[in-house]
């Protein structure tokens, strides 16, 4: 019995392990796979080219992509093609990260956010504007109007945003 009290006494002196979530949050591990983020280049253009390889790689069939063609008046991404529709069904997603592996432009990244809750099935489908990261400071939002011929590559080389 004394031994038991000793354990209790000891724990009273220890620092508490519980935190006041959601006010307090623990940092996630470096390889944590949370909610997806669609990345942008520094100038604000989207990295996603709408190739749908993420959707093809997805074992849970959680991703739906529909592509359209960029024009210099309405440019979303540096190449010829961008995702006009990009949806992830978070209820289906198993956070395996295959989409990240499949992405040829490193556009989709599993981020830190694990706070996914919804009250209906349709709310579980995250459209493109919820997945896209905010426009960087020096960038401008998409679609952008760019000078003609500034982007003539099918797929950017990803060395800088003007590829």
């Amino acid at each position, binding site marked *: 019995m004394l031994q038991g009290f000793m354990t209790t006494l000891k724990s009273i002196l220890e620092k508490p392990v519980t935190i006041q979530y959601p006010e307090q949050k623990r940092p996630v591990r470096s390889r944590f796979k949370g909610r997806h983020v669609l990345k942008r280049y520094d100038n604000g253009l989207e990295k996603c*080219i709408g190739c749908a*390889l993420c959707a093809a790689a997805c074992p849970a069939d959680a991703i739906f992509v*529909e592509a359209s063609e960029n024009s210099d008046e309405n440019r979303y991404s540096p190449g*010829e*093609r961008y995702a006009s529709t990009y949806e992830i069904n978070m209820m289906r997603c198993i956070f395996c990260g295959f989409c990240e592996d499949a992405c040829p*432009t490193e556009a989709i990244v599993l981020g830190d956010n694990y706070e996914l809750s919804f009250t209906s099935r349709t709310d579980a489908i995250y459209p493109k504007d919820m997945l896209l990261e905010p426009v960087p400071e020096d960038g401008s939002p998409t679609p952008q109007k760019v000078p003609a011929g500034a982007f003539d590559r099918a797929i950017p080389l990803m060395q800088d945003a003007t590829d």
Partner: protein
Amino acid sequence: MTMKMVTLRIDEHTVEVPAGTRVVDAAKKVGVDIPVFCYHPKLESVGMCRMCLVEIGRPVVDRASGKVVLEADGSPKIQMAPKLETACTTPVSDGMLVVTTSEKVAAARREVVEFILTSHPLDCPICDKGGECPLQNLTMAYGSGTSRFIFDEKMRSAKHVPLGELIYLDRERCIQCGRCVRFQHEVVDDPVLDFYQRGRALEIITRSEPGFDSVFSGNTTDICPVGALTTADFRFGARPWEMKPAASICAQCPVGCNIVYDVRREAKSSGKPVIKRVMPRQNESVNEVWICDKGRFVHHYNESAERLTQPLMRVDGELTPVSWQQALETAAAKLKEAGKGLVTLAGGRLSNEDLFNLRELTRAQGGTTLLHTHMGGGEWTRQLGLNQGSNLGSLGNGDAIVVIASDLHQEAPLWWLRVKQAAQRGATLIVLNARPTRLDAYAAHALRYQPGEAAQAVAGLMGNHKTPAAFQTAREALAGAANLVVFFGSDGLGLTGTRALAQTCADLLMQSGHYGRPNNGLVGVWQHSNDQGAWEMGYAPAADLVGSLKKAKVALLAAADPVGDEPALAKALAGADFVIVQEMFLTASAEKADLVLPVAAIPEREGSLTSGERRAQRFYPAVPAPDGVRPDYTIAAQLGQRLGLELEGRAAGLVFLRLAQSEPAFAGLSYQALSTAEEQWPIVGRRDLYFGGTTYDNNQGMGTHLQPVLKAGERPAAVAAALDTELMDAGDNLLVLPHTRLFDQGSLVRFSRLLVERVATAELRLNPATAKHFGLAEGVAASLNLNGADASVIVRMDDALPPGAAWLPRRVGVPLWAPAAAQVKVMERD
């Protein structure tokens, strides 16, 4: 004729093939894949890409004795060639040994792929071909994974070159195999694509104005082994693996090409499955592996927002949406009232099942069934049409084909292609027309007749009519033909003219006994996909449609738009007591109707069509039908049910069974029979993309010919109708002759926005001498007073046309269906 057979060994297989076969084909036949880029089984081999290099050995022959030298064990001694040979250009020879699995061959393939990829952009993620790309597949299968070439030295070329409004070229992706150039030159003889420059600067260009001016242009995207040629229609539409293929039949003309609708959900259409593209489906007896651009690009109509999805009934003079229940009750009551006064006017777009149920419904009331067409003669194609075993692809040396009054290139492009190829194989082609057509170039005898005198020309061919000497030589050429197929159309003719023509063509066939056996008979170049099916079921055009409609108590119009076609019919229809229209869209007739019933489009339902060659073929549902529409056969059955008539309306297959029981021509046929697939050559399909292109293989059935109505030697039932001659002399007025253009202003074409530039306009073409006589000049706007209505046209000079008449396309907004005398005057400029 027996072909010399050659036996050779390919790896561990022994294969016997006809002499002259290329090694690559012989290997394919035993399932050995020799990778190719530039070779295509339908094209001449050129050996440009070097991907098909294999080791070939031949038996050693002793020069002195001429005998094959044997090894110690008694097998022939094989001398391997010192270098690799291209399997696509090397014909097989007896005793040959082909090795495709050696390290030497593997190394060659690796290096060829590496070389081809030197300047390939590798933009597979955004390429429309990615996923069904021979280069991608063969690189994965035979490539090395790394390249010794310097990345920064890759060529950079234009990535988005519109060759025409339909096809885009990506010059970086092009591997210069020349399949597209050879297809355009050899297969369809539209030499509008060519190579330009040499070596690394070599590029594909179009030499036509407007760009890539060919009605077969879409096929180049199928055979392109990379994503260099893609269609504008499908650009970035979907990835190939995301789409579900649904087998169907093209309903744009009577050829009945086998196609596949590739279907995928689309966010733009609020998540509904939509048709993303149309691809050919192999059927070597119908369309081989090709389709025309009309079939490929006219598929947007069924997703149009203009589709009717609710029955409409005229209440207080306005068409008001009503429930199906109410609509059917009303229609049934009216049909009952009408009794014999029921006139059912059906269009050739309806399926066999629709036509059958409509016919049964109408007959039960004692009404009349009419076919809405400007072309007669079906009573002859029904009796003398093609039979089981017929295949235009098997016509060749010793056979003859007669094409009369038809511009096949515009009316039925695939028939044009197959007739042309038969002529090139040695068949005697006789083309008769009042004006020059694209088929003349391949004809042994291209004969002209006076506008309207088509029937007389055929009579001349038989020796029953006085004709120029050229007819005499053509007649002699025809005399010895083993097989004879006669195509007749409505170029420059109307209902009476075509009926007379068909009867004379029938006489021609009966005179020489060319009917009742395979590859012999009469083919009508109809306007719609299932006109032949309608004729088979006893539908026929009315001699006096105006009178019939005027007298009708109830006019039931299905897939027919008489009001939109002709002002006279509009007036006549106003005389009918009650008008029921079954349509997809609110056509001019539907607007005037008392009751409009919305129907399902072909991709939304099951059914079967009878092609002009009398081949019944099945189509399958591809996309779900919009809520509220029903197939025509179901509507007829539901009306029948309310009239105490037991008709099948649950499934198209069941209707077809009844049809088979009731019509001798369909006897013994069933959906199972229609969906039997046969082995085809060349081998195409998903696993053989590199070989045959992205054409789909046929697992859903080749269709079946209808039963012969007449056996060889039997005389056909006499057709009583007296033959009126058609208007040929317009007196002081201008004789205007109708002809059919592929891209007309038909009700389905207008939804394909890409085709707008190709759609025919109201252009009056005539010889300059005739034009001068009527005071017309090139490019002027003129007003035609035709059949009591005014129409404005643009005048175009054409030296090739015979003087004395003018030609105007059908379905360009001018109500012209038969030759007509027109008062013409030049319009004042505003």
